[in-house]
């Protein structure tokens, strides 16, 4: 249940300026694991900005998702250095073991596997992030252990 008060409290963190739209949408994303329709509508009301414009932003920026993401977000970095050092194999391993396609969420809502176009930790390629925690020099044979350990630990 997305509470109206929670939405309002997030909007109230910022000044009433269109410059803050993206930051607010990202705060929604962080809080609710996606950007809820009620959030966009309320934001449009409060800011006096057309809902269609906010909707366009929600679909344009990859950091935002209009559908709920999994409880745990696994991000495979697919930057060039990571690609050369085996990111495709890591991604395939995760897809295979979790039964999802990239950018998809497992049926039980536990995991979302995403690709990120470079997290800026290139010297430790290939990089995999599990719930915002960075893991460098990931190996396909070890990546599921990393995920399990962090999620259970």
């Amino acid at each position, binding site marked *: 249940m997305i509470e109206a008060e929670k939405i309002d409290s997030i909007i109230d963190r910022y000044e009433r*300026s*269109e*410059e*803050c*739209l*993206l*930051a607010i*949408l*990202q705060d929604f994303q962080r809080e609710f694991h996606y950007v809820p329709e009620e959030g966009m509508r309320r934001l449009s009301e409060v800011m006096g*900005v057309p809902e269609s*414009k906010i909707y*366009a*932003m929600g679909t*344009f*920026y*990859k*950091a*935002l998702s209009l559908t709920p993401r999994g409880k745990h977000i696994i991000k495979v970095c*697919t*930057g*060039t*250095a*990571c*690609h*050369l*050092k*085996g990111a495709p*194999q890591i991604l*395939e*391993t995760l897809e*295979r*073991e979790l039964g999802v396609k990239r950018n998809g969420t497992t049926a039980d809502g536990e995991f979302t596997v995403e690709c*990120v*176009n*470079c*997290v*800026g*930790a*290139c*010297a*430790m*390629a290939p*990089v995999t992030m599990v719930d*915002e*925690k*960075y*893991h*460098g*020099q990931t*190996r*396909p*044979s070890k990546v599921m252990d990393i995920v399990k350990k962090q999620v259970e630990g």
Partner: protein
Amino acid sequence: MGIIASAEELERYREKLAAEAKPDLPTVLVCFGTGCQANGSRPVAEAFAGIIREQGLELDVNIGIKTTGCHGYCENGPLVALKPQGILYLKVKPEDVAEIVEETVKGGRVVERLAYQDKATSETIAQYSEIPFYKHQHRIALRNIGAIDPTDIDDYILAGGYAGLAKALGMEPDDIITEIERSGLRGRGGGGFPAGTKWRSCVAVKSDTRYVMCNGDEGDPGAFMDRSIMEGDPHSVIEGMIIGAFAVGAHQGYIYVRDEYPLAVKNLGSAIEAARSRGLLGDNILGSGFSFDIKISRGGGAFVCGESSALMRSVEGNVGEPRAKYIRSVERGLYDRPTVLNNVETWANVPEIMVKGADWYAALGTEKSKGTKVFSLVGKVNNTGLVEVPMGISIRELVEKIGGGIQGGKKFKAVQTGGPSGGCIPERLSDLPVDFDSLTEAGSMMGSGGIIVMDEETCMVDVARYFINFLVDESCGKCTPCRDGLPRMLDVLTAITEGRGREEDVALLEELCDLLTWGALCGLGTSAANPVLSTIRYFRDEYDAHIKEKRCPAGVCKALITYSIDAEACTGCMLCSKECPQGCITGERKKAHVIDAERCIRCGVCKDVCRYDAVRIS
């Protein structure tokens, strides 16, 4: 300490900090950059704090601890530096901390096993400044990173911070612009446009309001120098922007930071707060009468927002769609006002140029590319990380002298420079100097400084496909050549890597490249041809092998390779057959194993787990 009300007061404050500083105090500097934190530097810092408590040592009397920004040598982290000796320890674990305190902090001795080991000479080098990775660097933009605590403004001031600003505020704005022009500083984000010229063009446009902005979007995969600067020395960027704002007459600035850099956002935010509290941002800066403030704007996961007009639209609160740049941003930029947008590294250089002078800066580098550049040396090279060197260094020097050569003793094949807007330079041309112009002639560009080192196991057709796939994802969708042309280019490249390439495919790719270069709306599209054309130019034989012989010489393209086990090398340990997700490896204990090629999906797990290097790709 509250507001610093004048340049003189700033100097007195700096002198006070210097007097109170204890240069001989044994200090432990733990790297808190994103890379080292990922490798566990936080527990290391906590271990130091723990030891101090346990041993009843007094902080800042017996020992100092500092957390710093990214040293750039990330693969070897967590990195711990020690003052006053100037020692660097690599891959430090919490368990090592007690020994470091005992041996080095108290005893002044080196813990050899934690120091750098030269792979070629087997020499142990404990001195930070002697380690080859650092020895050949000339750190200007990175001057403070690793030495100061980025969340402590006093550290920055003690290191000479805001002296450039104090000097600039006593100058005529026009003279500041002249100084930047004379220094030869060119944009470090990839465009290479002379910064001084940009500032001057902005001033020439009549307007009541103008803006200065910092491009911290750093979208090129493989590049992380801006991250390191924003995390490790945010004040250098802030100071640079205040100087620029004063020079062009702007009172509001924005720093656009990509969403994927949360630590940079955090450290910039607290640096801005600290600067405000000292009167270095806000009204009447250092009593000069000049007012200026900075807002941080976060990106949302869009490479195209690194393009200047898309960035500005994003800051205004829109989707990040570029516009035709027939009228430049210095004339009509943010909110249609004259705007100076410069890259993080460009801004970070400005304070030093003010303090040390244009002549000092122009003495470094080459005739048309002055100063130093931060490169991110990544990929199949031994020493991966960030290095800052004078412009004009050759690719070979970067890869071999500083990078320490190719990992695993493999053959150096090529470097990719300039991100998705750049191209590949083959090893035989690696005596080319790295500067703004030389690489462009060779079909690439220096770009933001990402240097991706490739070896014999890199498939150049796959590299081209990788970049076009990236751009298909990141295209904003506004113009036909990029939106509809790139996916069809990807079709052709994918077909080639899957063994479905046709004779006419290379010509078709070249045609699409031509269309993009002439017809795309923005730099993302117009430079998309580079990765494809440069690989066709220098590695045509690989394209031909894929198309005519259905063969991938580098052993990468899954449809064209077979995994097999070398019976001689295999010890029958059964590890691969256990891990194989297809269950297609058979063999008895202690007997050579066999892969069923029909069912093999080329996932690479067997090769990954094999301890005897018995898995072959052909």
